[in-house]
């Protein structure tokens, strides 16, 4: 039992595991659908913002390249001395600083002119910082110098990294004068994303190699390690970062391998529940102008539906577990009951096996068990062998008078058990032949074991019945002639009447006695007299039908009870007997005759009156000369 419970428990654990996996998969699918939408929204919104900036910066670029004064300054810058360049730089700043302020209001944080040979000409955000070579650091500037092409995209720089729009500046004669760059502040992008998408916060994290390692050393302090991952830095870090953001990042790190996710350089979104609220962090992969992933936009957003989804699937899981537990309990109970039943049945079978009589367990239709005595009786090794050939012990019940058989099952009775239970105990006797064909008679005892099973024991009462029959035989038979006596007549005549009637036959009485029997006794003695009586009985027995009954009525008087259709048939039978007796040669006595009186019994009169009528006819036969049949 314990091992069974163990197996069921293991099965339960496996089912719970599978169920949980299934629920988690469903839940994850729901969450993923929403997170995918969030990622797409972030992607589209970012693209829309950057495209808008492209239009804005392109307009500024157009204005610059169509301003003759500026173009002249840039042209002169190519050939001026160092001192003249300083003046030109100052003048350029003076010319465009108002535009720069406007750009700042539009969150374009860097407005930067580059020289024709790829050096910094003028940074409007840090105008005193110039002259440094950029061509080897910045592919966008290299593209402008070499190919005179514009470059749009994310790029690391010596001061900041940013989303850049770099446009080449060409004179009217197509001479290359340098380039101008507009960089979008990540803060601008961040605030616009926060505003457009109603985010809690947004960050831009950029690889160390593309930020901290590339900027001027004295500006490295403007970068700080991102709390999201050590390999990523964040610009213009505010020391007043939202506490909730920091806490959630810490929690996320416990739950996810963020470093690994970042290394995959793909967009991803992570859900998290913190302090009873749902949040999501969406990471949008940002590539530089060479198509390399160099950072992520991280959108920190509320995700209230996460709680609903969690609640929904937690509820489903709990309900599922409850059902499984109930099922588990039910299985245990069933197993226990089954085990108990099996144990009880085994005990019962053991007990049954100990019984000498045949005992079976059955519901009346299905045969469930039989003891060893049963198998020995029918000559089977195992119960299964028996079942291959038979369905029921009742198949062996033989149809005999005074014995129960399947033919005796009445209408409305479900089976032989019910039928047996409906008859008195004394009559629950069946007649069965054993493996050797020897007949046995059993008294059937039926006890209810449970709602469906009966214990049926077959007690062999063959000897008792045989003794009874013997006794009965002794009582109803004449000792001398071994034919029925008057007691038999009295006990059975009504049954016979009933039987003949049911067969639509008539009961005929042949009353006969030996003519001058007294003289036989007187002449030859009683032994010869007895011999004559016995021999006469044999002659008659041999000349009547098996269904006919010969009865010694008293002294030398006999009665034959015969079934006939009419008196003529009875007369023929009597005449036949008279002739047989007349023709027989007895020892010593030689020859005797008998006189016969006949009568046909009528239903409405007493049988004894019929006998009397036959006796009267016998008297008539005697009176008319003996050895005659009078009807």
């Amino acid at each position, binding site marked *: 039992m314990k091992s069974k419970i163990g197996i069921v428990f293991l099965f339960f654990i496996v089912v719970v595991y599978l169920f949980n996996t299934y629920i988690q998969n469903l839940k994850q699918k729901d969450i993923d659908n929403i997170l995918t939408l969030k990622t797409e929204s972030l992607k589209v919104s970012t693209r829309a913002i950057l495209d808008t900036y492209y239009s804005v910066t392109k307009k500024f670029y157009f204005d610059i390249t169509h301003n003759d004064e500026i173009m002249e300054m840039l042209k002169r810058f190519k050939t001026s001395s160092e001192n003249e360049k300083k003046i030109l730089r*100052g003048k350029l700043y003076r010319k465009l600083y108002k535009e720069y302020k406007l750009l700042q209001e539009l969150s374009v944080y860097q407005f930067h002119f580059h020289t024709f040979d790829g050096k910094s000409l003028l940074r409007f955000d840090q105008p005193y910082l110039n002259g440094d070579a950029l061509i080897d650091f910045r592919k966008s500037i290299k593209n402008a110098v070499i190919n005179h092409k514009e470059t749009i995209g994310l790029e690391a720089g010596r001061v900041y990294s940013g989303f850049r729009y770099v446009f080449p500046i060409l004179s009217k004669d197509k001479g290359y004068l340098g380039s101008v760059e507009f960089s979008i502040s990540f803060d601008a992008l961040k605030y616009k994303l926060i505003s457009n998408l109603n985010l809690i916060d947004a960050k831009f994290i950029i690889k160390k190699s593309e930020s901290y390692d590339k900027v001027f050393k004295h500006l490295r302090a403007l970068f700080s390690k991102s709390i999201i991952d050590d390999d990523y830095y964040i610009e213009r870090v505010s020391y007043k970062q939202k506490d909730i953001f920091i806490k959630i990042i810490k929690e996320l790190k416990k739950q996810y391998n963020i470093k690994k996710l970042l290394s995959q350089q793909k967009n991803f979104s992570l859900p998290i529940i913190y302090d009873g609220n749902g949040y999501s962090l969406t990471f949008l992969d940002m590539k530089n102008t060479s198509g390399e992933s160099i950072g992520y936009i991280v959108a920190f957003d509320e995700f209230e539906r996460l709680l609903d989804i969690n609640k929904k699937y937690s509820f489903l899981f709990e309900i599922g577990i409850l059902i499984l537990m109930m099922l588990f309990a039910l299985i245990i109970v069933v197993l226990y009951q089954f085990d108990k039943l099996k144990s009880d049945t085994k005990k019962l079978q053991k007990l049954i096996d100990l019984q000498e009589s045949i005992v079976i367990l059955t519901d009346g239709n299905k045969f469930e068990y039989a003891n060893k005595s049963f198998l020995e009786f029918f000559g089977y090794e195992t119960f299964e062998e028996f079942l291959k050939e038979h369905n029921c012990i009742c198949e062996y019940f033989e149809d005999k008078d005074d014995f129960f058989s399947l033919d005796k099952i009445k209408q409305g009775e479900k089976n032989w058990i019910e039928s047996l239970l409906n008859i008195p105990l004394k009559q629950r006797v069946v007649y069965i032949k054993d493996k050797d064909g020897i007949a046995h008679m059993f008294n059937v005892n039926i006890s209810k074991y449970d709602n469906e099973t009966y214990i049926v024991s077959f007690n062999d009462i063959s000897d008792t019945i045989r003794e009874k029959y013997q006794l009965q035989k002794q009582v109803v038979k004449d000792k001398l002639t071994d034919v029925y006596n008057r007691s038999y007549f009295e006990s059975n005549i009504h049954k016979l009447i009933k039987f003949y009637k049911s067969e639509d036959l008539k009961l005929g009485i042949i009353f006969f006695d030996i003519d001058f029997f007294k003289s036989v006794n007187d002449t030859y003695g009683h032994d010869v007299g007895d011999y004559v009586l016995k021999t006469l009985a044999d002659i008659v027995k041999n000349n009547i039908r098996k269904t006919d009954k010969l009865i010694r009525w008293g002294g030398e008087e006999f009665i034959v009870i015969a079934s006939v259709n009419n008196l003529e048939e009875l007369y023929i039978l009597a005449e036949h007997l008279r002739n047989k007796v007349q023709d027989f040669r007895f020892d010593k006595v030689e020859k005797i005759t008998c006189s016969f009186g006949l009568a046909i019994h009528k239903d409405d009169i007493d049988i004894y009156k019929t006998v009397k009528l036959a006796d009267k006819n016998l008297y008539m036969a005697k009176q008319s000369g003996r050895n005659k049949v009078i009807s």
Partner: protein
Amino acid sequence: MYKLFLILILFLTLNAKEITYRFAPLPTKNIEQNIKEFLPIHVYMKEKYGINIKYVKLKNYKDILNGFKNNTIDIAYLGPLPFVTLYNEYKQIEPILMIKQKNGNAKYRCVLAKFKVDNIDFSKKIKVALTQPLSTCGYYMSSILLKKKFNKDLKDEYYNYEMSHTKALISVVEGRYDMAGAKEDIAKKFDSLGVEIIAYSDYLPGFSIVVNKNTISKKQIRKLQKIFLNFTDEELKKIGGIVSRGIVKTSVDDYKSLNIKMKIPQKGNINEE
């Protein structure tokens, strides 16, 4: 300088329980810049000695003065003029350590600078860009230099506060002002933009760590001074941050040369926009 100060505070309280000092950095710089300059020494002090620094963000020198008076500030990092100005009003403050300039000098100069190609017409009122009212190189030294070099009284000219040296110099490049008063080293950075220095001051005492004697005992102050001055330049560089420039001892005497009797206007006299 701040780092030095923090270390000083740390050693002062070595045998004491964890202590928190309320520190007011330069109001002319934003809080983030200040924190970045002092963060290395802050972290070092906290990890090594359990001394914590609480940054008190104040908008101007007046607030710092009030902070000292109300005993809500223990330490401040101040330029020479602000110190002298505050000292004249409240004698319970004392400069204990001077942090060197980036160029390694403990002292510095103020200058007047202009865009090279601009011709200033001194026959008319000129426009001068200034840093902050209590900045040494602001109204105070600019008025001295203007008088000395061009015989002009600043109070009679146009002036306005741009609130930082860099902004004052940029305003000159932009053409909004004829000249700007600023620190020499900052003005020199603008050489590449055609900015030239047209007047130099004498060397002035530098920025210093100033303590509130009402909230820090004399014994603690002297002990801190001793400990920090025992640091070698290499040790200070190793600590990093602003103290890596180097530290020298200072006192009220170093600031006596400054004439703080001048009345410094708190607002400019032009409405540029």
